[in-house]
């Protein structure tokens, strides 16, 4: 099985919440002025949003979800399922989704569970929820998706620290017999697990004194084993090799061509990666929105963030054929082709 379809599910609305505080790459002294310029030009990030110490990913997702209730897009009693996709849960246990069931005032019959995925997480979340909804036994579901990546990067690691921003999202999906099928192609390759990894802190290597020891990996790259380690070249090669075939396969399975798609919304990894993929696919710039310049890599929130940031007006007013794609840590990657009807909400919020 490479591609699969789900039926009868539509995205009714979405919201994304980012911390208000922005950190500029031009204030990051570990990079020289020339390196800052090259970083901005190549990676494409000017600034990113950073959550305060006491604000978690679930706080950002909670605010995003509340907006849907407060603006009568739906109400808490309509929600039958809540899925939290993140690599920065509130606690070791219990699951953050269960905590959010209570905080958001959802009924006790709500299915709530977490899925631990990063950059591919939004597409995975859509595939899981649409499988639950398509039979009509569940009517509405919330996909809460994002990360507080800045908690795991180390400030003196120039290979990861300046890349990541924090964001949380809420997407409302519902059973809808008028909806066009969603076509997914999902992939996994655990042989690349070391390309992005936080080694210490769970059961393979529990947190210990060694986890705190800061080591110099190479000039400008210092970190401990509790911090996120990223091999940029391996990720880059993986993305160039796997993403465009995955997108082409998804289009083929959906019976569509590049020209049938109004917008290609990809995970915002790195502008050079994304632009190289765009050229390989042969997609025009106008159909390929970005949010990375002002928000950095926001992990699984990057696709909904780009939708709200770049396409809010279109999503509210038009019917759109979209291709959404996520790729990264795992390694894990996937794409979906779907059609949206004018949405009730596509809002980007700030968290104070």
């Amino acid at each position, binding site marked *: 099985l490479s591609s699969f379809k789900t039926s009868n599910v539509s995205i009714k609305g979405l919201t994304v919440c980012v911390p208000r505080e922005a950190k500029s790459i031009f204030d990051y002294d570990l990079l020289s002025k020339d*390196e800052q310029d090259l970083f901005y030009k190549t990676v494409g990030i000017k600034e990113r949003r950073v959550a305060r110490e006491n604000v978690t990913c679930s706080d950002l997702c909670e605010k995003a979800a509340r907006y849907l209730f407060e603006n009568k897009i739906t109400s808490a009693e309509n929600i039958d399922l809540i899925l939290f996709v993140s690599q920065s849960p509130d606690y070791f246990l219990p699951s953050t989704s269960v905590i959010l069931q209570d905080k958001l005032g959802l009924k006790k019959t709500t299915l709530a569970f977490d899925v631990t995925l990063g950059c591919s997480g939004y597409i995975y979340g859509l595939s899981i929820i649409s499988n639950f909804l398509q039979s009509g036994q569940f009517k509405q579901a919330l996909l809460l998706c994002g990360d507080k990546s800045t908690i795991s990067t180390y400030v003196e690691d120039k290979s990861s620290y300046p890349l990541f921003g924090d964001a949380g999202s809420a997407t409302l999906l519902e059973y809808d017999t008028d909806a066009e099928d969603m076509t997914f192609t999902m992939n996994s390759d655990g042989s690349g697990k070391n390309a992005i990894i936080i080694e210490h802190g769970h059961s393979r290597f529990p947190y210990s004194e060694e986890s705190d020891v800061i080591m110099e990996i190479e000039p400008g790259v210092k970190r401990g084993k509790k911090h996120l380690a990223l091999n940029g070249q391996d990720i880059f*090669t993986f993305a160039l090799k796997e993403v465009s075939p995955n997108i082409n396969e998804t289009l083929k399975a959906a019976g569509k061509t590049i020209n049938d798609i109004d917008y290609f919304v990809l995970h915002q990894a790195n502008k050079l990666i994304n632009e190289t993929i765009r*050229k390989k696919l042969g997609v025009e710039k106008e159909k390929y929105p970005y949010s990375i310049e002002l928000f950095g890599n926001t992990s699984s929130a990057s696709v909904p963030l780009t939708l709200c940031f770049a396409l809010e007006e279109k999503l509210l007013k038009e019917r759109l054929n979209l291709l959404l794609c996520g790729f990264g840590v795992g390694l894990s990657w996937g794409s979906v082709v779907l059609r949206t009807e004018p949405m009730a909400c596509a809002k980007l919020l700030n968290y104070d």
Partner: protein
Amino acid sequence: MTVNDFIDKLEAEFDDMPKGTLQPDTDYRSIKGWSSMHALIIIAFVDINFNITLNGSDLKATKTVSDLYNLVQQKASA
């Protein structure tokens, strides 16, 4: 593509690089301001122009611009 065409195109990928900076025997990591981002630019350049995806260890095995050119030629004919 000849090694000189290869060099011309590669120089164009590195913005602000004066023409003639790179020679076949230039150790490309020794160019002024070299950083890990330049390695990504090379990988992207080779991918787009030759449809060959180099990985980190491919790059590690090369030192000069002509090493890089020969690696690409070799992979293209493989």
